[in-house]
């Protein structure tokens, strides 16, 4: 993978902030978008800005055809068996909510999540508690604890493969096997996994997998939910309307097939086409190359940053943290670190609780500064970060 070639695809790098291109390292939140993705979206608006499915004119047929191809591209990318198993959503959050609210969970059932979930993987289940569904947690990454908590009442295990907070991952495949052995369904939050390494639903044997397009070069507000066909068919769609029924009378309706029954209302066709283009882009680069690049940079950066006063969250070995370095510098608040990096060196990082308040609160911490690297980041950028953080440390 040639990073310089990759960077040429990203128009943001043409922008100048105080005379130089930005050092963007907030990709765990949203990645930059290559020209190819922008082009695919604009193609929809220019060439066939119409409805899919409902309209039989030429434009409508074209959109339907393109959406079908997009679904196929995403299917292939996550190693799903059939395109119908891919539901387009707006993001990971929507995917998790869809499952949480469509599964037939009730009094006495329990949902098991880790203690390090993003709010999107936690709050939907806290809300279900009001309906009598119990919510239990296990320690993220701890198989022993997981097994212990995996009791007979657990109908659903919902957890992130990779934490957005520190980049560490769980043995999702083993966990899925254990859960299935217990008769529980498995919903994996792939928001931080799918963009960064090869993720196959077949191999993981996940029943559901939710992820976001905007964290993997795709347009903002795009995502997908994978579900095994039989399980999808058994779900009770909770958001219905146009596009989700075949027919209706004043009294009743006939549900559409899967996946359309879950895609209520007019869809973001441009986004869907952009997402498919993003997936193709990543496949061209090769997910193993993306992963290797992130690991190399993370190794280099973690080494450069290590030293007194620097506390990196998560696993000490950068190899198991993907592209994420979540850290605190003693004596300087993480918001200040982020602010100073931005003002002094155009380095854009995230600071705060990264939507994982529950974990920080239970550890009596008020957040961290987080660098998240992606395929377009370079060693030179890491050098700039190391230098700038060195200067920040000298402030105290």
């Amino acid at each position, binding site marked *: 993978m040639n990073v310089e070639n990759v960077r040429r695809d990203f128009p943001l790098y043409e922008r100048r902030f105080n005379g130089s291109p930005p050092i963007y390292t907030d990709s765990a939140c949203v990645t930059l978008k290559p020209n190819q993705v922008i082009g695919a979206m604009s193609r929809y608006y220019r060439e066939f800005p119409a409805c899919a499915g409902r309209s039989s004119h030429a434009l409508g047929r074209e959109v339907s055809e393109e959406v079908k191809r997009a679904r196929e591209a995403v299917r292939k990318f996550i190693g799903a068996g059939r395109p119908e198993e891919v539901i387009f959503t707006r993001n990971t959050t929507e995917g998790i909510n869809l499952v949480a609210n469509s599964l037939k969970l009730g009094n006495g059932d329990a949902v098991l999540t880790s203690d390090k979930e993003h709010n999107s993987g936690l709050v939907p289940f806290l809300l279900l508690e009001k309906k009598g569904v119990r919510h239990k947690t296990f320690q993220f990454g701890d198989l022993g604890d997981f097994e212990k908590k995996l009791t007979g009442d657990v109908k659903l295990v919902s957890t992130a493969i990779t934490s957005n907070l520190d980049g560490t991952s769980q043995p999702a495949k083993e966990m899925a096997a254990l859960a299935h052995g217990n008769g529980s369904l498995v919903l994996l939050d792939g928001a931080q996994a799918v963009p960064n390494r090869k993720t196959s639903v077949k191999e993981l044997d996940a029943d559901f997998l939710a992820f976001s397009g905007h964290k993997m070069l795709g347009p903002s507000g795009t995502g997908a939910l994978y579900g095994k066909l039989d399980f999808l068919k058994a779900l009770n769609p909770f958001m219905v309307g146009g596009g989700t029924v075949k027919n209706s009378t004043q009294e009743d309706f006939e549900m559409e097939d899967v996946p359309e029954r879950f895609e209520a209302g007019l869809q973001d066709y441009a986004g869907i086409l952009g997402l498919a283009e993003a997936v193709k882009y990543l496949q061209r680069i090769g997910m193993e190359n993306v992963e290797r690049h992130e690991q190399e940079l993370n190794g280099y950066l973690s080494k450069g940053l290590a030293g007194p006063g620097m506390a990196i969250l998560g696993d000490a070995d950068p190899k198991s943290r993907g592209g994420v370095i979540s850290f605190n510098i003693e004596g300087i608040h993480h*918001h*200040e670190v*982020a*602010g*100073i990096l931005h003002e002094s060196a155009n380095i854009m990082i995230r600071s705060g609780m990264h939507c994982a308040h529950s974990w920080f609160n239970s550890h009596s911490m008020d957040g961290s500064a987080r660098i998240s690297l992606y395929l377009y980041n370079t060693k030179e950028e890491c050098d700039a970060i190391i230098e700038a953080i060195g200067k920040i440390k000298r402030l105290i």
Partner: protein
Amino acid sequence: MICILALIVFGVLGIFSATHREMALEAFDCVFRRVTLRKCDSGLDRRLKSQITGKLMAKNPAVARLAFRHFELISWFFTILFVASTVYAGIGGYNYYLYGNCNGPNEDGFCIFDPLGSNSKFSAAQADESCSAGPQERGELTLDGVNVELFPRIDRNAANDVVFIGCYACPYTRQSYPAIRELLARDDVDFAFAHLPVKEDIRAASDILNCVNEAGSGKFVEFNDELFSADASVLENEDGLLDAVGRIGLDREAIRQCSHSERIQNLTRLQISEIRKTGIYGTPTVFVNGEAVVGPKPLRVYARLLK
């Protein structure tokens, strides 16, 4: 501390822009929390601190370090500075309202509300060629012992006394005239006009004024209206002055002869010496109920001194 500063600054900017309005609200929330002894949790203080430190770091790491380490202290310093200058500006504004100048009655230092100082200029009362203000002894200004009855007057037996000392040819007297004219039109004001011919060549105007005043009560006001609106160049020759006499319907020849009379010239001389007794150092000087106001002020400044 920085939040208080931010609140005030963004509050003012917020009048003009919506983004600043939001920041002002955030600052307000922050100040409110601090006042109620809670933590400011909007992160505004941190954001400002890091922005400032970051900007400095790119230029001078040592200064950045200083700013970062002593941020709270520096914010205090600027806040106090800011509050103090706001108070000063407030006092200045108040003075400007009362006296037409930020620095107090008859002061002429720089005033932000009147940056050109046009409310505070005056012409030197000692005769010289140009009417320009030179360095002057400035004593107390008073009407004590001055015989106001010597001057052209409108006596309505009213509650207020206004004595307007000015010179036809001097620019600041001319500038003040419209406001004075409005004062004079009020029926609760007794008015006297003391002409001080600061330039020798307009002394004739004083003589003619005295004759006009004798020719009919209140005629001097019409004459003043003419002269203050006429081009200043006509004031320097008798013909120009007499033309004005003609325009207000008086016999120019009779007035000319009157103005050359010994009696009138003595009166003028006497008037000038009476005017000097006030301690005048510049025109216009207006006494409103005995209180002196020097320089052309907005009407409100004079009106405020009325009963």
